[in-house]
């Protein structure tokens, strides 16, 4: 057969430079029945990169639950899709952009957001919300972090925040949630995971499946340049070394304005009925979009590179195929109706060119000026790539004794200063300085923006009538520190907390998406962490009824041989049948009763012992106050989590609660404080909250610190109008959830927590708020 003669002859050495192993290279030759040319080698290398092929994770991902009665589209498409009633579907997915965000924080973050937004509107869904799950190294000097390192981490954070804001704000999608965490292990490898949510009419959903022999293949959007070549294979699929900074040219550059035009044009083109299939050009650009569309459709594809709009001259087929220029899409149109599609793009001032057609026989043929630049069977390339059962080895058991664990303070110790320190720590402190840089209110759907509720909540306007009835709630969670100590339990907590957050907003959790951030899969201990985490996710998602509908795996998160904490981040989506019943965290009225709901013990049984030293040593308090990160994450009880979730939903539906806030980082004391802080900035309530105080009694069976700050799950703090208390207690009993009256919302400014008749925390709410509200801003704007 005839292929184009190329200047570079492919040798095993060149194949190795492309990241292909000897076995993989042999497989390439077997699929082709010959030696590849350099363009073909490039295509194989990106398609078989870890980032695109999931070759190390595939065998494990199979264990995740992906089906459910509401799941319309599971993993394998651009995004997961679930049925949300009234003929509507929600498309959502989370994806990482970690390495680019370290090399070039601003552009890395913008293109991360851009990529996930394209994944959503490729499905025919208009994006209505973005959340970001971020992890950075420590931003203040400590025993693990030098002053210079901390300053660098602050710069990375600033670039990432500006990048996320710049893209979403211009595009016109509200960025309304997520979390930010800090650990020394992310210092040279920050995590930037972006989640996007969109909605569409069910019958107007689009898939990336080439169909119809002879149908035109249409390239739309930005021109192709030399940027981002090998972004997926070299940047995302290898660990960092000293030379990684030289990979800055491998980072793509984002243009949110172009993306906004692309969004409007694509949605409008889809309405013509002349679009058969659509796929965005993200990682591995034109290569991935052509090969995957053909492979999924069981067809071939033929394109002519000479027709591809290019922004630079003299680009080789290799460069055009591997470019990761942003804001591009590949469409399959209906033969004879091309002009309808092209007219829409012309209206929006975008390039749209017929570059080829769908063919019979399964071969992807890339022509360039009348010569064949590459000729590859699409399906074997896309679906029969390497799959590895990487070696797995559990790490040696940690030999800890009580001396390594947190030692509780003597009974009666005043904990106010520690509490202030905890509230001011970057992990707990208000993230307002960050979230105010994001547009949170555009599209007028935001019912609960950052910090207002445990989950971000947006109402759903019908795409045609704009009538809003239901709302969607989203929460992302993932505790790397816990996963480092016990990946299986840590992963279960991530699911449980995200689902609990969603339930605390009044929404029923229905599905999940995951972003699995790990070290090098070539290390047996990392693969052990990965495998354990998958088992934890599978168990928790099954128990809580939230199938995984998509997401991504990010391996090679290491720098100079050191892995990050294993950090599976879970996004859980929930639905509120009545948008007016959103629950928020803010306490509302003087005299309201504060209840602690606990799913792990019924009214008939005493609460289990609240955290041993071992368990407490993994808490945020232990880390912040004692510098100790050890022991085990809190034991998890999924049945208890489910009970609590069901109980919260019942209470929300009855309209029985004034507020709800789950207990997580920083424990009960932080949960209470946050509900007070929110009370003075009640958004959406018609009354102006008076200055409120608090008086709370801790349970006496545990040491005061354990009772106030332990992070065991399946618990939430709710406030109730006295007249509804009996009904709430009754509902809790029905769901076998313990409901303990722990205190009251009071008038005045005093925040008092008692333990065994002694006051252990006593401060004015304003003093506490001062510590919490401005600490992050002070740190980040310090010169």
């Amino acid at each position, binding site marked *: 057969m005839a292929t184009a003669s190329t200047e570079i002859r492919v040798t095993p050495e060149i194949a190795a430079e492309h990241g292909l192993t000897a076995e993989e290279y042999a497989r390439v030759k077997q699929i082709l029945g010959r030696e590849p040319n350099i363009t073909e080698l490039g295509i194989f290398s990106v398609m078989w990169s870890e980032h695109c092929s999931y070759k190390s994770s595939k065998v494990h991902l199979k264990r995740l639950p992906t089906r459910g009665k509401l799941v319309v589209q599971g993993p394998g498409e651009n995004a997961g899709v679930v049925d949300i009633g009234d003929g509507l579907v929600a498309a959502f997915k989370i994806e990482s952009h970690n390495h680019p965000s370290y090399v070039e924080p601003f552009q890395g973050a913008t293109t991360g957001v851009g990529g996930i937004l394209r994944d959503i509107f490729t499905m025919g869904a208009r994006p209505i919300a973005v959340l970001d799950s971020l992890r950075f190294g420590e931003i203040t000097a400590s025993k693990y972090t030098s002053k210079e390192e901390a300053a660098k981490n602050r710069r990375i954070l600033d670039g990432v925040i*500006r990048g996320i*804001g*710049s893209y979403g*704000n*211009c*595009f*016109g999608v509200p960025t309304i949630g997520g979390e930010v965490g800090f650990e020394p292990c992310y210092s040279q490898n920050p995590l930037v995971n972006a989640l996007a949510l969109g909605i569409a009419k069910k019958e107007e959903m689009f898939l990336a499946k080439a169909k119809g022999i002879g149908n035109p293949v249409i390239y739309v959007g930005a021109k192709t340049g030399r940027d981002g070549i090998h972004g997926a294979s070299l940047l995302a699929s290898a660990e960092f070394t000293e030379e990684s900074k030289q990979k800055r040219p491998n980072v793509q550059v984002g*243009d*949110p*304005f*172009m993306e*906004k*035009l692309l969004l409007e044009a694509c949605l409008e083109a889809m309405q013509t009925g002349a679009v058969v299939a659509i796929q965005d050009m993200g990682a591995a650009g034109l290569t991935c979009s052509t090969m995957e569309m053909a492979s999924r459709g069981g067809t071939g594809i033929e394109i002519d590179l000479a027709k591809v709009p290019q922004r630079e001259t003299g680009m080789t087929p290799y460069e055009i195929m591997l470019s990761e220029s942003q804001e591009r899409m590949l469409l399959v149109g209906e033969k004879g109706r091309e002009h309808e599609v092209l007219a829409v793009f012309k209206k*929006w*001032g975008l390039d749209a060119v017929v570059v080829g057609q769908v063919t019979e026989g399964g071969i992807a043929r890339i022509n360039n000026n009348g010569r064949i630049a590459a000729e590859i069977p699409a399906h074997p390339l896309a679906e029969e790539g390497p799959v590895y059962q990487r070696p797995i080895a559990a790490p040696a058991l940690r030999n800890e004794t009580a001396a390594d664990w947190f030692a509780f303070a003597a009974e009666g110790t005043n904990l106010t200063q520690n509490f202030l320190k905890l509230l001011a720590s970057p992990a707990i402190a208000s993230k307002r300085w960050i979230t*105010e*840089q*994001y*547009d*949170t*209110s*555009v*599209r*007028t759907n*935001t*019912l609960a923006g950052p910090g207002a509720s445990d989950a971000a909540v947006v*109402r759903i*306007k019908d795409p045609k009538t*704009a*009538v809003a009835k239901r709302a969607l709630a989203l929460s992302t969670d993932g505790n790397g520190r816990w996963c480092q100590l016990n990946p299986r339990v840590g992963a279960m907590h991530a699911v449980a907390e995200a689902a609990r957050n969603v339930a605390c907003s009044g929404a029923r959790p229905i599905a999940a998406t995951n972003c699995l951030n790990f070290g090098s899969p070539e290390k047996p201990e990392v693969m052990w962490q990965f495998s354990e985490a998958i088992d934890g996710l599978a168990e928790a998602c099954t128990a809580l009824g939230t199938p995984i509908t998509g997401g991504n795996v990010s391996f090679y998160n290491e720098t100079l041989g050191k892995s990050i904490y294993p950090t599976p981040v879970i996004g859980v989506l929930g639905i509120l049948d009545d*948008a*007016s019943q959103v629950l928020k965290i803010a306490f509302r009225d003087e005299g309201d009763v504060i209840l602690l709901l606990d799913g792990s013990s019924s009214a008939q049984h005493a609460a289990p012992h609240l955290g041993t030293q071992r368990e407490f040593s993994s808490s945020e308090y232990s880390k912040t106050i004692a510098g100790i990160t050890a022991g085990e994450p809190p034991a998890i009880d999924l049945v208890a989590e489910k009970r609590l979730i069901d109980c919260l939903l019942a209470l929300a539906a009855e309209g029985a609660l004034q507020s709800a806030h789950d207990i997580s980082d920083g424990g009960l004391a932080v949960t209470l404080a946050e509900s007070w802080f929110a009370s003075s900035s009640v*958004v*959406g309530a*018609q009354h102006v909250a008076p200055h409120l105080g608090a008086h709370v009694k801790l349970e006496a069976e545990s040491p005061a610190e354990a009772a106030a700050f332990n992070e065991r799950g399946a618990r939430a703090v709710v406030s109730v109008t006295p007249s509804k208390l009996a009904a709430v207690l009754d509902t809790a009993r029905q769901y076998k959830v313990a409901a303990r009256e722990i205190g009251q919302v009071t008038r005045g400014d005093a925040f008092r927590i008692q333990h065994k008749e002694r006051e252990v925390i006593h401060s004015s709410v304003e003093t506490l708020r001062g510590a919490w509200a401005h600490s992050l801003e002070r740190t980040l704007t310090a010169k």
Partner: protein
Amino acid sequence: MKFGVVVFPGSNCDHDAFYAIGNVLQKPVEFIWHQSENLANCDAIILPGGFSYGDYLRTGAIARFSPVMKSVEKFSNSGGMVLGVCNGFQILCEVGLLPGAMMRNRGLRFICRHVHIRVEQTDTPFTNAATKGQVLKIPIAHSDGNYNCDEAALAELEKNRQVIFRYTTADGSDDSAGNPNGAVHNIAGICNRERNVAGLMPHPERAVEWALGSNDGLVVFRSMVEALVGAAKATA
């Protein structure tokens, strides 16, 4: 009565303005494409927020050259009612229908939050349904909202009572404490001398229902409706 919402490439609050008028106030409204030279017989024009043409050069700097803006200029010169919100305000300054210009926010960062603005004048078609001194809670979302103009123009603005909205605190007592972006004289919104063209940085279309945190923005659109009803009666 018909409202027109102009759609520039990069407008992203066009749907919100449309929703506020069409769905919340239930008044006729349609979109007007930036390349259109006729305003579809609309009685009031809204230039929505967003990043027209990407705003990479300077906010509103490209939009002023669009075909639709020629018609908007003509429309306003003959007394037509034009409201610019955020990017729309920036465009009105660029095109010269309103005096002054926007600089980057004082803190050089994008800011999105609810702010409070006080209604300074009620003899405009954008504020006639409000009471003088009324404090409205409305969100802002911009990088370039730091309104500025030279001393002479500022004196003119104040003398002619063209400052119609000023940033303030929730109780309306301390204007500079409520100023989020450094705008001169705490200016949040102004009108032209003839009072038929106005621009403001806060987004009234995002404050139209309690569920969104405030419905204080409705008063701006209600004022416009009342002004149009009044005008229709006058000509009848």
